[in-house]
Every structure is written in structure tokens, then in C-alpha cells.
């Protein structure tokens, strides 16, 4: 318990340092960098033209499908890490069978998504 907490303290210290460092790096130019204000200095860049409408708009629904299968996958793959650490060399064939079943289930998920056409990119015009 003690060591785990200490591990976290290390991680925390480094994370804080990272943010501190980035903060300092962003703050320094405030004092030495020039400031100019022109008519278009603070406008959004869209190749030099005024943008049409907001950028916050529903974009390609296809990506949501990818995100969904990712969520299914990522969590499941993480389960495999404890399995991998306690995976013994030789003997205990049921361990392998468990692994096999688990991975095959994942393969099934991919096959399902594939068959459903998630990975097919095709323009569906109006």
C-alpha cells in the first residue's frame, strides 16, 4: 500500500511539473513577445476567408461507429493484461483455452462490425 501511494506521488509530481512547465513556457512570451492588433488578427483561420457558419456542427457519423467498437475493445483488451502477467509457461492448458475463447469472442465482434459494413467507406449521396 505504501509503495503504491508513493508510486502515485511520483506520477503526480511529474504531472504537476509538466503542467507547471507548460504554464511557464506559455507565460514567458507574455512579457517578451510583441502584441499586435489588426482587424483580422483574432479571427478564425479559414484560408483567409470568413467562415460559413460555426465549426461546431455534426461531423461524419461514421466516426461514432469506430468510437463505439473501440470502447468495446479497449476495455476487453485491458482485461487481458492481468491474464498475461499470470500466464504460466507450460502446463495448465485450460489457461490457453480461456484465452482462446476470450480472443475469439473479440474476433467475433470485429467480424460482426466488418460484416455490418462499419469499415466500408462509401459516399452516400442525397
Amino acid at each position, binding site marked *: 500500500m505504501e509503495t503504491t501511494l508513493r508510486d502515485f506521488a511520483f506520477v503526480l509530481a511529474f504531472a504537476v511539473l*509538466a503542467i507547471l512547465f507548460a504554464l511557464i513556457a506559455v507565460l514567458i512570451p507574455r512579457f517578451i513577445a510583441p502584441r499586435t492588433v489588426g482587424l483580422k488578427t483574432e479571427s478564425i483561420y479559414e484560408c483567409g476567408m470568413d467562415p460559413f457558419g460555426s465549426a461546431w456542427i455534426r461531423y461524419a457519423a461514421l466516426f461514432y461507429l*469506430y468510437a463505439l467498437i473501440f470502447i468495446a475493445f479497449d476495455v476487453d483488451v485491458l482485461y487481458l493484461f492481468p491474464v498475461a502477467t499470470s500466464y504460466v509457461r507450460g502446463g495448465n492448458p485450460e489457461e490457453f483455452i480461456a484465452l482462446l475463447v476470450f480472443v475469439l469472442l473479440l474476433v467475433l465482434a470485429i467480424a460482426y462490425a466488418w460484416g455490418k459494413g462499419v469499415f466500408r467507406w462509401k459516399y452516400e449521396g442525397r
Partner: protein
Amino acid sequence: MRRWLREQFDRYFGSDPVRLLFALGGLFFATLVVLALLYWVVGKVVTAGLEAWGWDLVRLLLGLLGVMVVVFGNALFLVWAERKVAGHMQIRIGPKEVGPYGLLQSIADSVKLLAKEIITPRFVDRPLYLLAPLLIFVPCLVAMVVIPFDARLQVRDINVGIVMILAFSSLTVLAIFMAGWGSVNKYSLIGGVRSISQSIAYEIPMLLSILPVVMMARSLSLKEVVEAQSPYWFVLVQPVAFLIYFVCAVAETNRTPFDLPEAESELVAGYHTEYSGMRFSLFFLAEYTNIFIVCALATTFFLGGYKGPVLPGVVWFFLKTYALIFVIMWFRWTFPRVRFDQLLNFSWKFLIPLAMANLLVTGGLLKL
């Protein structure tokens, strides 16, 4: 700010030499008092820390210092090396003016970036936009905690090091998407969306290619993974996993041919279109640090880490890492960019099934 300081100064001291003298004296004493206070506080904290933590605190402080040196040294070196490598691949010379062989070029560049104007567009989502460059730096430094540079040169050997690195590396995606979404720019948004789907697509094969390594080393601690690689490196028994890992590493760091989130010819600059000056260079710095990290991990997982004859371990470690980084640069200056659907489907249709098969084969062979 500067003007305000000057105004205040003039207001209180003006040009009267006596007043100026008094002011300086006062300032001097004030500084002394503050320093003494600081010394006392820091001393208390350090002694208290040392009592509770022992050498760990020293390790932590030295580690922080060392990691910063590595991060900066690496970024400065890589910027220079990248340009030099690119130059020689493109029948040019690359930087040569500043310092011998242009070695100081990247220092000059960073000073320039420091002095560049920072522009915040008017309609951005301020919290997201401002936080993104700060956040992108966290996973870079945190990953450094557990990387074993040598048998004893490791800030902290955390027993779930691998999982920790992978978990934190997802923060990069978050930061990139914050940048893309917060910029309220269509190019940034597309870059952000692409970045997420790319990172998640390549995270799974990456995990799956590390799993066999974990299986063979039977540990999640990076140091033990390295120690498990004797007498042979894992790349010899896991060549497929190594290749999958390496491809994913290139994709995770957004390098050509997988640099779609920042694809210049399509998206101008992708998610960091709206960032300028130092904020932009933080993304840049993070990118170079990430390259170092993924290559260091590849070295650790597959190339025997710091193990090697004759030379000290740390030299071996850096040699292997930079050799891998060179390969990534080589990719960048040779290949065109892939298309987005090709990129995603390459992972889902090819890399993931392959990595799974590799995992099963490893599992089966280990049981024999």
C-alpha cells in the same frame, strides 16, 4: 505589463538619487528576508520529506531534473537531427549556419518561438483552447517516470508501469481533441476528429502487440521486461509483435505516413491551426517527446532495453532508441501520406486480426 512596471517605478522613485538608493536598499533587504523564509520553509519540508521518504525524495527531485534534461535535450536534438536527416535525404545540407554543423539551430529556433506573438482568436472556447497545450505535456513527462534508461537509472520502477504509460498516453488524444474542438475552426475540428479515431484505432493493436511481451516476461514492470530479455531479445521471438508495435507507434505519434490529423495539404495544420508561438511549440515539443517515448518503449519491450555488451547500458539504450527514431524519420521523408479510410481500415482489418493471431500463437506456444 512592462509599461505598467515602468510607470509604477517612475511614480514612486522618480529621478531622485537618494530615494532611489533607499528603494534599492529596501528591495535588497526584502529579498533577503524572503530568501531566508524560503530557505527555512524548504528546509523544513525537505527534512520532513527525507524523514518520511528517505532516498525516494532525492530520487524524485533528481528524477524531475534529469527527465527535464532528457526531454529538452531530446527535443532540441531531434529538431536538428530531423532537419539534417531530411536535408541529406533531399540532396540538401540542412542547417549549417548556427554553431558547428548547425547544432545550435534548434536553440536559436526555440528562442525565436519564445519571442513570438501569441494570438488567441476571439471566438475560441477559452478553457479548452488554453488547457490543451498544457495537458498535452503531461503524458510525455509521466511516461518518463518508468522508462529504464539503465539497470539502476530509472526514476521509479512502478509494478504496473506498462499499464500506466498506456493509460496516460490516452491523455494525448484528449488534449488534441480539446485543441481541435476548442479552436472553433473547421480544419481543427476535422483534425481533432481524425486524431481521435486514429489514436483509438491504433491503440488496440498496440496493446495487443505488447501483450505477448507481458506474457513472456510475466510482469508489467518495464525493468523486469528488460531483465526477462536474456539471453535473447524479444524481437527475435516476437518479430510480428515488434512490427505491429512499430507501425502503431508511428501512427500514435502522428508521423508521416500517418500524419492525418495535421495533414498539411488537406487540413492546413490540423488541430493546431489556431495555435501560435509558444503554444504551438508545446505541441511540437510533445510530438518529439512522444516519438522518443514510443521508441524508448520499443527498445525496452523488444530490443533488450539497456542490455548490450562492452558499452554502458545507458549508451546502449540511447543508441537503440535513436536508431528507431531514425527509422521513423526515414519513413517521413520517403512515404506519401495514406488516406484516412485506408489508415483506419488498415488497423481494423489487418493489424488487429494479425495482433490477435499473434497473441494466440504466443499463448499456444508458451503452453507447449
